[in-house]
C-alpha cells in the first residue's frame, strides 16, 4: 500500500472512530441531565434509574473517546509532521482551549460517575451539566481547528513559510461557526436517534415498559428537535462552502460544468472520465438557490478547477447524498413525533412507530460519518486548502501501512467489545433496576 493512502486511511479510521465517541460525549450528558432533573423534581425512581443506566454506557464510551482522542493528538504529527510544524503555531489556539475544556470534562465526569452517593442531588446534577457544556466546547474548538484547514486565515504564506501569524484570526476563520454549529447539532441528532432507536426496539418486546418509554421520549425530543434544526445549519454551511471552496461544492453536487442556472443533482453515480452523472434526478434552478440564495445564480463547476486539484468526486458526492438523505429521514420522523404529540396522540404506543424509530437507530451516525467524509475528502488534494497539499505534509517514514493496520485492528476490536458491553448492559437492566420491570398503561 502506498504510504499516502495508508496515512489518509489511518486518519480516516481514527477520526471516524473517535467522532462516534465524541458525539456521545457531547450529547449524552444532556439526556442524563434531563432524566436526573425529572428525578429530583418528581421523585420518580424511574428517572434516576434511567440516568444511572445511561451513565454506565457513557462511562464506557467516554473512556474510549478519551484515549482515541489522545491518539489523534499524536497521530497528527506522526503522519503529517510537515503540516503540524507549520500549522501548529497558527491553528494551535483552539486546541489549547480544548485542553482546558477536556480537562474540565474529565474532572466533572469523575464527579458525576462516582459521585451519586457523595454529592448532594443538585450538586451532582450540575456536574453532569458541566460535563455536557465542556463536551460541547471541546467539540467546537476541535471543529474550529478543522475549519481552519478548510478556510485558512491568520497568516501570510511566503516562500513556503507562514509569517505574520495571528492565532485569533486563525481560530475565528470564516468556516468555524457554520462547521461548529452543524457538527454540534449533528452530535445531538445522532446520539438522540441512536438512543431513541435502541429503546424503541426494546419497547417492541413490551410496549408498556415504563423505563424504556421514558427513555424513548427524552431521546426523541432531543434528537427530533436537533434533526429539525439541522437543515437550517446545513444550508448555511453549504452556502459558505460554495463561496470559499467551490471545488468541494462542485464535488458534493457532482457539477462538472459551470452552470447558470444550476440544477440540483439528487443521487446518481458520477462518471468522472466522461464528466457526467448517471441515474440521477435533476431539479432545475435548485442548486443555484441552495448555493447562492438566487434561482439564477452561477454555480462554479469542476471545469473551472485544474484537474489535478479536483477532490475525489465519486466519494464526495455519494457521501453527501447519504448525509442529506439520512438527515431528511430523521427530520421527517422527528416532525412526525412532534405532530402527533401536538395532536395529543401517543405515537410511542404504536408498533409501526417503534419500528420506524428503531430503523433510524444507525442513521444519525451514518450521517455523521458521511458528513465528515464530505468535509475531509472534499478538501483533497489539500491539507490546508489552497496552501499545502496533503502529499507534501506526509511523514517520510516508510511502511506507514503497518501503523494503519495496527490502529485499524485495534479500533475494530474495541468497537466489537463496546457493542458487546452494551449488549451485556441491556440484558441485565431488569436485574439491576426495578423500574425496568415496571409497566404502565
Amino acid at each position, binding site marked *: 500500500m502506498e504510504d499516502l493512502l495508508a496515512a489518509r486511511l489511518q486518519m480516516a479510521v481514527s477520526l471516524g472512530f473517535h467522532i462516534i465517541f465524541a458525539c456521545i460525549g457531547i450529547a449524552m450528558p444532556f439526556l442524563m441531565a434531563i432524566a436526573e432533573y425529572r428525578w429530583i423534581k418528581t421523585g420518580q425512581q424511574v428517572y434516576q434509574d434511567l440516568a444511572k443506566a445511561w451513565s*454506565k454506557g457513557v*462511562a*464506557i464510551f*467516554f*473512556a*474510549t473517546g*478519551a*484515549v*482515541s*482522542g*489522545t*491518539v489523534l*493528538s*499524536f497521530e*497528527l*504529527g*506522526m503522519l503529517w*509532521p*510537515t503540516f*503540524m*510544524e*507549520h500549522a*501548529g*503555531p*497558527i491553528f*494551535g*489556539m483552539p*486546541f*489549547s*482551549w*480544548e*485542553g*482546558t475544556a*477536556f*480537562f*474540565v470534562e*474529565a*474532572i*466533572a*465526569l*469523575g*464527579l458525576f460517575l*462516582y*459521585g451519586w452517593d*457523595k454529592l448532594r442531588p443538585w450538586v451532582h446534577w450540575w456536574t453532569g451539566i458541566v460535563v455536557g457544556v465542556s463536551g460541547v466546547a471541546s467539540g467546537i474548538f476541535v471543529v474550529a481547528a478543522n475549519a481552519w484547514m478548510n478556510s485558512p486565515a491568520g497568516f501570510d504564506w511566503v516562500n513556503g513559510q507562514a509569517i505574520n*501569524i495571528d*492565532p*485569533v484570526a486563525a481560530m475565528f476563520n470564516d468556516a468555524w461557526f457554520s462547521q461548529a454549529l452543524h457538527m454540534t447539532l449533528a452530535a445531538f441528532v445522532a446520539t438522540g436517534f441512536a438512543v431513541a432507536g435502541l429503546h424503541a426496539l426494546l419497547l417492541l418486546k413490551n410496549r408498556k415498559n415504563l423505563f424504556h418509554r421514558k427513555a424513548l421520549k427524552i431521546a426523541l425530543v432531543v434528537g427530533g428537535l436537533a434533526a429539525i434544526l439541522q437543515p437550517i445549519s446545513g444550508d448555511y454551511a453549504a452556502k459558505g462552502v460554495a463561496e470559499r471552496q467551490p471545488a468541494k461544492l462542485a464535488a458534493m453536487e457532482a457539477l462538472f460544468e459551470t452552470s447558470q442556472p444550476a440544477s440540483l443533482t439528487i443521487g446518481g453515480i458520477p462518471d468522472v472520465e466522461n464528466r457526467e452523472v448517471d441515474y440521477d434526478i435533476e431539479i432545475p434552478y435548485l442548486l443555484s438557490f441552495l448555493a447562492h440564495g438566487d434561482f439564477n445564480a452561477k454555480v462554479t463547476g469542476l471545469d473551472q478547477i485544474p484537474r489535478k486539484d479536483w477532490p475525489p468526486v465519486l466519494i464526495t458526492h455519494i457521501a453527501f447524498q447519504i448525509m442529506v438523505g439520512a438527515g431528511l429521514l430523521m427530520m421527517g420522523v422527528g416532525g412526525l413525533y412532534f405532530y402527533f404529540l401536538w395532536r395529543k396522540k401517543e405515537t410511542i404506543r404504536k408498533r409501526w412507530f417503534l419500528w420506524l424509530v428503531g430503523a433510524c437507530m444507525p442513521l444519525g451516525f451514518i450521517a455523521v460519518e458521511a458528513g465528515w467524509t464530505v468535509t475531509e475528502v472534499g478538501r483533497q488534494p489539500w491539507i490546508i486548502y489552497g496552501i499545502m497539499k496533503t502529499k507534501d505534509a506526509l*511523514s517520510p*517514514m516508510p511502511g506507514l501501512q503497518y*501503523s494503519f493496520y*495496527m490502529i485499524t485492528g*485495534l479500533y475494530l476490536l*474495541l468497537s466489537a*467489545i463496546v457493542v458487546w*458491553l452494551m449488549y*451485556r*448492559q441491556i*440484558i*441485565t437492566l431488569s436485574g439491576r433496576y426495578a423500574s425496568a420491570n415496571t409497566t404502565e398503561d
Partner: protein
Amino acid sequence: MLTNIVIFFLALSIVFYVLFAGADFGAGVLEYITGRRHRQVVADAIGPVWEANHVWLVLVVVILFMGFPSIYSAMSLYLHIPLLLMLVGIIFRGTAFTFMHYDAIKDQSSRVYDAVFKISSIITPLFLGMIVGAAMLGRINPEAESFSEAFISPWLNLFSLSVGLFCLVLFTFLAAVYMIGETDEEPERKAFIRAGKQLNMAAVVVGGGVFIAAEWNGLPLLALFGESPVSLGSLVVTTLLLPVLWISLQHSWVLWSRLLAGAQVVLILFAWFWVQHPVVINMGASDPPLTVYSAAAPPATMLQLVIALIVGAAIILPFLYYLMKTFKAGQFKQG
C-alpha cells in the same frame, strides 16, 4: 518572557502527569507485586481520577505542537514507533480498566481485562521513558541513510531502555506509596509499605544503571550533572530524603509518605529538566540541538498560549482540588 512562562507550564504539566497519571499506571504494575487480591482497592483508588490525570499528557502535547512545533514534529517523525507503542498502551490501559469496572456481568472476562490492564500499564511508562531517553541521547539524525538508523536506533538502545525502566519503577514506587492511604486493612497496608520499600530500592539501583548505560552509549551524563550544581544538588537532596521516607513508611504516615515520595520524584524531574535546559532534543551528527528557544513559536502564538494556559489553570486547578477532595479527603485524615 512569554516562552519562559510556557516552559514553566510545560514542566508543570510533565510533573503533574508523572505524579498523578504516572501513579495510575504504576498501580497497574503494582498488581504484579502485591497480587490479585488487592485489585479492588487499586481500582477504587484510580477509578474517579484517572481520566482527569490523563489529560496532563494531552496538555503536554498541545503545548508542544502549538508552542514548539519543530520539537513536536521531530519527535513524532523520528520516534513514531515508540510513540505508537506508547499509545497502544494508553488505549488498552484506559479501556481495559473502564471495561472491567463497567461490565454488567462479572465472569471470566474480568480476567482478560485485568491481564490487559496490567500489561498495558507496563508498556506505556516503559516507552514514555524510552522516548525521553531518545530525546536526551542525541541519535536522532535527519541525515540518516537507513530505516533503522533513522527510526529505530535513536530509541532502541541501552540508555533509552534504562530510562524506560527507571520510569516504570518510579511510577510503580509512587503508586505503592500512594496506595498506603487507600486501604483500611492493616495487612493490605503492610503489603503496600513493603512494596514501596522494595520499589524505592529498585529505583536507586535502576537510577544508577541509567548513568552506567549513558556512559556505555557515549552520553557523559555524570559529567553533565557534575557541571550543573543545581541538578546535582537535587539528586543529593533526593538521596538524603530516602531515610526520612523509610521512617515515614515504617510508621504508616500516609500524608508524609505521599509528600516525600512525590518530592523525591519532583526533584528527579527537576534535576533532569535542569541538566537538559534549554535543550529538548539532542540531535545526532552535525545538527544543532532543538532547544525551547530555537523551536519557540512566534510571540503572537506564545501570547495566546500563555493566556489559554493561565485561564485554563485558574479553572482547572480549583476544580481538580474539588475532585481530589471529594474522593481522596477521607484518606488524608489517617495520616
